[in-house]
């Protein structure tokens, strides 16, 4: 429905524009063409701009970043957030690489980048 109404809107804007700018060969009918053209263009524009807001994207998932406490070990794991997770929480599970202790280093969301301003 959205695409059809947009297409119809474009057709009406273009049609109305042609009527408005080209008018009629009959000098007396010109004014009627102007009015009609304007009305049709207005209808087209309202169809193009109508349709309400864009569908909202759901928030990205929250993830938990776990890292090994051993400064020489580079083990890092990112998994889905689980209730009870918090930043700097010491975990009971051991590092699969060096068997050291592990801590939650981050609980976060990666949101969509805001458009960069051109000025």
């Amino acid at each position, binding site marked *: 429905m959205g695409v059809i109404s947009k297409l119809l809107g474009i057709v009406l804007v273009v049609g109305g524009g042609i009527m408005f700018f080209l008018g009629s060969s009959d000098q007396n009918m010109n004014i009627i063409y102007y*009015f009609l053209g304007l009305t049709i263009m207005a209808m087209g524009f309202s169809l193009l701009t109508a349709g309400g807001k864009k569908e909202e994207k759901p928030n990205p998932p*929250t993830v938990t970043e776990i890292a090994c406490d051993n400064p020489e070990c580079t083990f890092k794991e990112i998994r889905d957030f689980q209730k009870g997770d918090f930043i*700097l929480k010491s975990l009971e599970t051991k590092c699969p690489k060096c068997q050291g202790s592990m801590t939650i280093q981050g*609980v976060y*969301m990666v949101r969509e980048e805001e458009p960069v301003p051109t000025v």
Partner: protein
Amino acid sequence: MQGIGADSEFSWIINLAFFAFIIIFSLYGAKFQIWQWLKQIEAGLIELKKMALESRETAIETFKRYGKGDEEVAKELDRWLDYFTIMPVDLDPAGILKRLDHLLDERRDRFQEFVTDLAPEASQAELQTLENTLEVTQVLSLVFRIVRHYYILGKKTNSQLIIMQVQMQLPDILLLAKAYFDSLDAFSEGKPIGDGIGPLVVTRFAREYGATPDSYITEISREVGYYPVEVEGRTVYALRATGPGGTVGKPGLAVKTLVEQNKGRIARIITVDAALKLEGEELGRVSEGTGAAIGDLGPEKHAMEQAATENNIGIEAIVIKENEAAAVGVMDKKILDAVPEVIERIRTAILKRTKPGDKIILAGIGNTIGIGL
């Protein structure tokens, strides 16, 4: 007949339509615009109502986990959504901050009492988080009721002024409401929010210098404690609210107490907080300046400034730029990534502007939800 399309056989129709158009729009143009504005406010109100109702549902679901039944929670919650705080009289401004502080303490007590009654099986950290959930639900309900009030009032009095103001402010109001609505996910699940970057930075900094959860000294003021750490020959009191429950505590009073306890020996106060970014600025950008970075209603900031001024202590601020949605929503990766830079700036400030043997207060301001000690 002279006029538009004078020689046409349709000329009288065109003339009539033209004049009718002028007359209708000069007489009813404003009414048409008011009608349009009211329709726009109505659409916004539907959105606000949806957010208010859904947040109420989320609050009920969250409270239900801690020992009370569905109906009881809903009934009590509805009663609490109307809770208000009367700001102190400002005709006589002397002592207003003290009075405001007292009222805010009282308000906080009532909130804690209510949450404890409604969630008897919740732990201390969970109670703090539930308090945040309740506050968000209350804000959304209030925003909806205020906008609805002006909508109905504008309609009743046919006042263009009232309707126009609401319509013009509506995009901002909706943005704010959406930010709070999205934050419910964080508050109900205990996830860290963007505003918590201050306490996180302070804890990470303290841990780099050997602090542990056990070295945290609790309750120097309400829900605020500190880690004493040695940094390059200086003593740093790394102060933050107690987490991982959701609280900001009373950091201003904590700074004041520490200054009094170390009379004449505090050389610098460094505050770290999230600050609202300007549109176009990058999320997570780090900035620094002079003054107390704290966004309370007044008493906490005043306590900090007064302690610094009376004891001639330099006070500086390091802030992490965020928008409203990022500050109250789940912490963004970009904000988390700013932590190392902030720590580096703190280190530079300490080394450049203090000397060995000095004592420094490093205050991380913000909500500690989801941020452990």
